[in-house]
């Protein structure tokens, strides 16, 4: 096992990607604190894996994030890895997007990363050790239609993480981002809920390339998280990785809603 005696806190576990990450971390021996906007979601996942506890956390609240970190430190004594999987999405034309919708999406996706990083750093700097991984999106680079606030928030997170990696280089803390290539159903569901929009149909997600089988992606991203968290990734910081190269513009710009 690559991560024995390590501890991680994962924010946002409603989607398949986060669930694959938590399961993989646990399989590698990592002890976990799992949080989600909905406590029952975090509890459910925590009950399915070894050495894990669940907490309800709204990532738009700095107070709740700090409390979650405190619980993790109290339970395990330290935080080795922080993985932020909290993402919400809303599929809407920019000219129709309201200021309130913009604020909710950008705060949930980007400001949360600032809160989480800031809260985690205190313990990591004391320990002179730590890894922060942000799950962002390939839209940060491609910028599809009808997802402008989402793309903006994801690239904002990457900008934050890149800068942060420069700040904490001498503290033996590494900071990286992963960029999934599709938007999960659960992101659209929570996005709709928080912005008071109609929920998407059952099984709807957003896909950017018909050439990729997204069913494989959660597992592949979980492998990347373990790689970045383990000793093998110890010379990697300030990077934003996706799993394949940019698609043909035609496919990339389609940003189509699809059924799972």
């Amino acid at each position, binding site marked *: 096992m690559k991560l024995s005696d390590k501890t991680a806190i994962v924010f946002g576990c409603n989607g398949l990607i986060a669930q694959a990450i938590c399961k993989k971390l646990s399989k590698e021996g990592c002890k976990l604190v799992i949080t989600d906007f909905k406590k029952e979601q975090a509890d459910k996942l925590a009950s399915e894996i070894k050495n894990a506890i669940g907490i309800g956390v709204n990532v738009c609240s*700095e107070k709740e994030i700090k409390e979650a970190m405190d619980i993790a430190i109290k339970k395990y004594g330290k935080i080795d890895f922080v993985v932020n999987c909290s993402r919400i999405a809303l599929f809407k*034309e*920019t*000219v129709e*997007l309201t*200021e309130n919708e*913009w*604020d909710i999406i*950008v705060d949930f996706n*980007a*400001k949360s990363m*600032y809160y989480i*990083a*800031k809260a985690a*750093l*205190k313990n990591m*700097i004391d320990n002179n050790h730590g890894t922060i991984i942000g799950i962002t999106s390939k*839209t*940060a*680079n*491609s*910028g*599809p*239609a*009808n*997802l*402008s*606030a989402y*793309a*903006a*928030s*994801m*690239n*904002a*997170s*990457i*900008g*934050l*993480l*890149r*800068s*942060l*990696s*420069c*700040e904490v280089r001498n503290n033996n803390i590494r900071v990286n981002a992963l960029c999934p290539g599709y938007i999960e159903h659960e992101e659209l569901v929570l996005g709709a809920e928080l912005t008071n929009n109609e929920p998407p149909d059952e099984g709807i997600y957003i896909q950017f390339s018909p050439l990729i089988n997204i069913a494989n992606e959660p597992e592949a991203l979980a492998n990347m998280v373990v790689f970045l968290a383990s000793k093998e990734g110890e010379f990697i910081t*300030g990077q934003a990785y996706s799993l394949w190269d940019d698609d043909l513009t035609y496919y990339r*710009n389609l*940003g189509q809603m699809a059924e799972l």
Partner: protein
Amino acid sequence: MRLENKTAVVTGAGQGIGKGIALALAREGANVVISDINLNEATKVVREIEELGRKSLAVKTDVTSKKEVDDLIKKTMEKFGSLDIMVSNAGVSSMEYVIDMPEEKWDFNMDVNLKGTFLVTQAAAQQMIKQQNGKIICTASMAGKGGVATQAHYNASKHGVIAYVKSLAQELAPCGITVNSICPGSIKTSMQDREVQWSAEIRGAGATSEDIREEMANFTPLGRIGLPEDIAKVVVFFASDESAFMTGQAINVTGGQVNTI
């Protein structure tokens, strides 16, 4: 002249890069609305535009206020009857390490630089869709492509602008509207003066503003700090027909610098 009888609006045009852009657009024949949070500075630029023989108008705008942004477009339409070129340029910066960063600093950078871009370009797009043409240009930054310590909030906001522009470009392409961003490097402005001073203070050990400036120039392959005019030339290109087949791009104007210091 490439922009005769066009109407342009430039936010943050009271000084620095925005002022340089406004004057360059006017020199190419455009009438230019000078939007700035500081009406006094905006009014001075209006006089310079009028001296060039173009029409102008000063509008006080806080780009984080939807009401004021909508009012800017309304006043532009009342005076000029069309909106051909929107330059979303207003921006702010500060320097803080994340570990010490007060939430207000995060909000200030994100609200002005990123949300301001959304509000300004959304209002402009609503008008340009009626016209079925238009040119939108956003000032992002070299910081939108890399990371630098003490500016995580600024970098986050500028990364956000670049991604936002790519999305908006896809949406507006069918309406004949192009959307591009420019990424200035080290440019001599009052924002840079402040940053240079902060850098010297953070660095300590007797470092002076002049040391930091010299370093910036040394880090730039073309060997000098840029001027607002350097940026303005590229904005004119994006405002003109010469860029007719370009949209969704983030163009570096950095003297060859590819990342932050």
